[in-house]
Structure formats: C-alpha cells, structure tokens
C-alpha cells in the first residue's frame, strides 16, 4: 500500500482532482485494489446496486492496456490533428469506465476494458466526474490521407460552431471548442 487510504477513498468516490486521479492510476498496487474492491462492494450493498467487484487481474490488464497504447496507432488526420489524445488520459478513461460496467465484461484482459469505453449505458449518471478523454475509435475506418482535407475539416468546424452557437442556447461554448481545436490543429 503506497498511499494513504484517504486518497484512495476519495478516488473511489470520484472526488480526486485530475492530477490525483492520474497519480492513483499510476501507483495503484494489488493491496490498493483489494481495498478498493472491498469498499466498492460495501458501497454497492449500501446503495443496493448490483455488486461488481474489481477483478484480481485488473492491475495486469491495466498494464496490458497501457502497453498496447504505447504502440503508435494510425489516426485519421482529416480533422486536423485534433484527435491526438494523451495516452495516460485515454487509459484512465478506459479504467474508470471499465469499473463501472465491469459486470458486463467479466472476462479479464485489455480488450473488454477498451471496448467498454464505447458503452453508453447510464450506469453512473452523475457521480462526481473525473475529467478524462477517450481514445477515439476508428473501427471500420478506411484512412486515405489527402492533401487538401485539413482546411475542409476546419471549415466544417467553423460552420458547425456557428450553427451550434445560434441553436444550442449555450452562448459561447461552441466557439470555445472551435478556438481550442483550431489552436491545437495549428500546432502540428
């Protein structure tokens, strides 16, 4: 056990900051997993949720997922390079989601962990959320790079943002997305 139980408990409740969350993910060991597993069980019983414990092999599968992520993967570049996402963040997302829907994917291994990231069931609608992004999935994608595609992607983002700004009732939010994406796509 390499950290105080308070942080671990906060992590289980989704109350850790993004930085802490990633630190917990990085340092987690089997003793921690045992503790997490017990607490989760206790909490689920208290809240009368169907129980789902963290399997003992979780640590190994997380490592496998991390290793798999290290391998460079081909990503479509047509929307600019905006799809680049941090390795740690995407694995964290898979982990968080993996726990929530673990009962559906009992078999161990990295594949179910990653697959569950696409699961859109409302298993934990509004617990305090940790902010993590997903690695995008490009199933069935046929990626054929073309030279002129990036400007087109940017034009589409602009048109979509302008539409969304008028129609989503969220004021500047769509433009904030556009600014962020444009700044990042230009960086690479």
């Amino acid at each position, binding site marked *: 056990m390499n950290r105080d139980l308070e942080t671990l408990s906060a992590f289980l409740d989704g109350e850790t900051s993004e930085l802490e969350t990633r630190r917990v993910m990085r340092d987690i060991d089997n003793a921690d997993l045992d503790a997490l597993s017990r607490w989760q069980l206790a909490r689920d019983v208290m809240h009368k949720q169907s129980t789902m414990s963290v399997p003992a092999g979780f640590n190994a599968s997380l490592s496998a997922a991390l290793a798999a992520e290290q391998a460079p993967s081909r990503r479509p570049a047509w929307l600019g390079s905006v*799809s680049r996402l941090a390795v740690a963040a995407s694995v964290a997302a898979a982990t968080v989601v993996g726990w929530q829907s673990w009962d559906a994917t009992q078999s161990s291994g990295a594949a179910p962990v990653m697959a569950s990231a696409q699961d*859109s069931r409302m298993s934990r609608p509004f617990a305090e959320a940790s902010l*993590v992004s997903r690695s995008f999935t490009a199933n069935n994608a046929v990626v054929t790079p073309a030279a002129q595609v990036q400007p087109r992607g940017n034009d589409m983002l602009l048109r979509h943002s302008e539409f969304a700004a008028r129609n989503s009732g969220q004021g500047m939010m769509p433009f904030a997305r556009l600014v962020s994406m444009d*700044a990042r796509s230009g960086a690479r």
Partner: protein
Amino acid sequence: MMLRALALSLSLCSPLVALAEASPAHDQLQAMAEANRSLNYTGRFLYQFGAEISTMEVSHALIDGRQYQRLTHLDGRLVEVIRRGYEVLCLHPDRSLTRLSSKQMGPLALGDRLASDLPEQYNILIDGDGRVAGRTTTRMRVAPLDTHRYGYRLWLDQESRLLLKSEVVDGSGVALERVEFVTLNLSPQLGLDHFAVPEARHEKALAPVPDSHPSLTLTVTPEWLPAGFRAMEQDWRQATTDRAPVAARGFSDGLAAFTVFVEAIGENSVEEGVSRVGPTVAVSRRLAAPSGVYLVTLVGEVPQSTALRVIEGISVRENQP
C-alpha cells in the same frame, strides 16, 4: 426571482428533488440563454478536455440589437473567433482569416427556442449552490433520459444568470469537457472597435453558393433522428469557386447540436473514419446515390453511437423540378 431561487436552492440542498413542468429549473435555463445572449461582459476562463487545457478571454456585448463576441486563445498559438452580428470570423494560427456570414439568421435564433421548449428528453434539476470565479452560483444538472445525447452540469451566476462553469457528461458519468471562468466583469466598456476585424495575411470567405448552381437541386435528408432533434434549413457554401460546394444541414434538440455536411466527390480518394475530441465527434462516410457519389460528414456534440446511426440513414435526393 432571486428570492425564490435562493429559497429553492436552500431547500434542495442535499436530497435531489426532481422538479416538474414549467419548473424553476426550467426558468433558470431560460434565464441562462437570455443572459448569454443579451449581457455585456468580459472574462477569462479555462477550457479543458482530457489532459489539454486552454486559457481564453471572452468579451460579449449587445450593440444596436446585435451580438458581438470575441474569444481569444491566450496560451500557445493565437486563435481568435469574432462574432459581429450576422458574421463570424476565425483568425487561424497562421494569421489567415475565414469569414462566414449568414444571409439571415432565420426566423428565430434559438435562445427563444430553448425558452419555449426544452425537449422532454432531458431531466433538469437544481442541485444546490456552488462558487465559481469568486461568485455564488446555482448548480444545475441536465440529465438525458436516453442514450442519444450527453448530459450537462451547469453553474449559473446567481446575480446575472450567466453560465460560469459547464461540463458535458457522457452516459457513464465521465466529464468530456469543462469550461470554467476564473474572472468575470459584468460592466465592461465595450464599443464596436473592440470587435474590429483583425489584420490577416490571407483571407477567405465561406460564401453562399449562387442560386443557379446545379448542386442546389440536392436535398440532404435523415432517415432517423434521435427524439427531440429538429432539422434546420439546408445551406450550401464553398470556400473558393474551384472547389465543390458543401451542403450543411444543422440539427438540434435545444441543447445539443450536430451538423451534417454533404459534398459531391468524384473517384477521388477520401477519408472515411471517426474521430473524437472532447465531446465533439466527427464521422465521415461515402455515400453512393443515383445522382453521384458523395462524402457525408457529421460533426457534433453527440455520442458516437448516435452519430453513426444518424449518418447511416442520411440520403441525398434530387429535387423534382
């Protein structure tokens, strides 16, 4: 209004209570849309998705009944988006500028729509108080009742009703994106010069296509839409005359929005695929129709499964003369 909101937020503190019909929660959302549209303000905020954080500055003013807004990326590369009434400009990192001006904004821009009918596919709750940018806020949760859209956690300024913090939350409770103000000034001195067009090295416009263009006889129609989503008018534009015009048709449920783009392609190689950034998904797919081969692209803030299902059902039809 203030008192009622205060009393409510006090009484709702710990147990969440769902409020029905024309609820105070609903009023809050309407007030937010109105405040976002009509108030003059400046501020700085964080924009965050995944491990990426941007800092931005925003100023917003209503001048002669028109909205003016300027967003500036403060770190990394300089990007600005400026809205001047019916025109939106984007200054890119390479100092080039893209202009997008609408012919007309249509009969109603949707602050009004949000006010009149936020779809029943969302459950809206007031969730107590919070503090953002040193100001007291009302926390709200907008939870989708199906899996075709995302949920939101919103923090509204109690004084002005402006949206000060916002999270887009997916079905498993993971925040995909966060915006959070750190400073807010509600009485700035903003004139037209504040929203002047920046100097650019190169400029292009996404201009509407002339009425005579043959593309205009095509209509983009979805076979399936998530409940509550409505189609807006179709819009053809082209960046330069040597490139094929691209049609756009927007869809919104009052909170979430996506846009479907269709362009004619020859036998050129095109990219199909899916990519995601924060809550934004982009999907492209080739579509063979009797009138030709098209590339259909959906860009929007909806779950990937929704986007894929919509794009599967997109058809392109030639209008009867």
